[in-house]
């Protein structure tokens, strides 16, 4: 956090309206790919593919539309702190609920659903 250097405020990004429209098109294409993917039988690959594609969209918007790529580092540090912590807590919670013996309370039959966390994480981490 000790960015002492007087990083002069970079006014805006070098991107032009044209670039922005191109980025918008690419994002649209990714969305269409996602849509198609969700209809195709991809088996176990589906979820990682979808998560990866939406991560790409997420990062593109943050870096290019929100100009994080061209701004002082401190801003990236602030945002990444929140995004990473939120992701960790999300994964932690899903993991805990997968391992929650009290779950029987709801009388849920894992075959008909059960905790999503159980299915997802159990599947990929083999735990």
């Amino acid at each position, binding site marked *: 956090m000790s*960015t*002492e250097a*007087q*990083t*002069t*405020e970079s*006014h*805006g990004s070098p*991107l*032009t*309206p044209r670039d*922005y429209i191109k*980025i*918008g098109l690419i*994002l*649209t294409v990714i*969305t269409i790919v*996602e*849509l198609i*993917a*969700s209809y195709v039988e991809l088996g176990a690959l*589906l979820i990682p593919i*979808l*998560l990866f*594609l*939406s991560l790409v*969209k*997420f990062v593109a*918007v*943050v870096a290019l*539309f*929100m*100009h994080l790529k061209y*701004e*002082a580092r*401190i*801003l990236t540090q*602030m*945002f990444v*702190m*929140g*995004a990473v*912590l*939120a*992701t960790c*807590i*999300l994964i932690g*919670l*899903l993991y805990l*609920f997968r391992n929650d013996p009290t779950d029987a309370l*709801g009388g*849920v039959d894992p075959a*008909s*659903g*059960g*905790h*999503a*966390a159980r*299915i*997802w994480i159990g599947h990929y981490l083999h735990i």
Partner: protein
Amino acid sequence: MSEAVTHAEHHTSTGVDNRMLMMWIFLASECLFFGSLISTYLIYQGESLVGPLPGELLNIPITSASTFVLLMSSVTMVLAVYGAQHKEFLMMKLNLLATIILGTIFLGFQVVEFTEFVHHGLLLSTNQFGSSFYLLTGLHGTHVGIGVIYLISLLIGSSRRNGLGKDAGLNLEIAGLYWHFVDIVWIVIFTIIYLIPS
């Protein structure tokens, strides 16, 4: 104001504007807000004791359309920011207007979707899906709504005699940050709720 004033007030220690820094830290906080809501949704996925269940209700093609609308609103937003920063105020205003309209259309889609679901018997209290779905998407919609109002007030402000003043670029940039953030939250929600089969 004399000379001896205020040099400390215009430079910041990091070179980043105070409001800009605050917006980014606030967005970090918002990550945790939506993170908790999404966690809840996922934890309760498959926990509904009675229907209707997501598979019976979620309409992926229509939601893809609304996702597209929100995505386009990000493009127009970033163009509005570009306009403000390069003093092309007509471009700024038109794109701001377009963003507002697209945002409103997105909200319209959401209203239609909610009404549809209610018709099929999914109320807030029906089951775990209803509770966690409405809370998550409803609070996201609230954010969009606040964003629309935020942008409308900027549009009104920019049509005053001296527009948004010398801070126009910064003002729009900050509003844009909020708007894009709401968009990326939707990117995540769209994938997690709609695309990934439950």
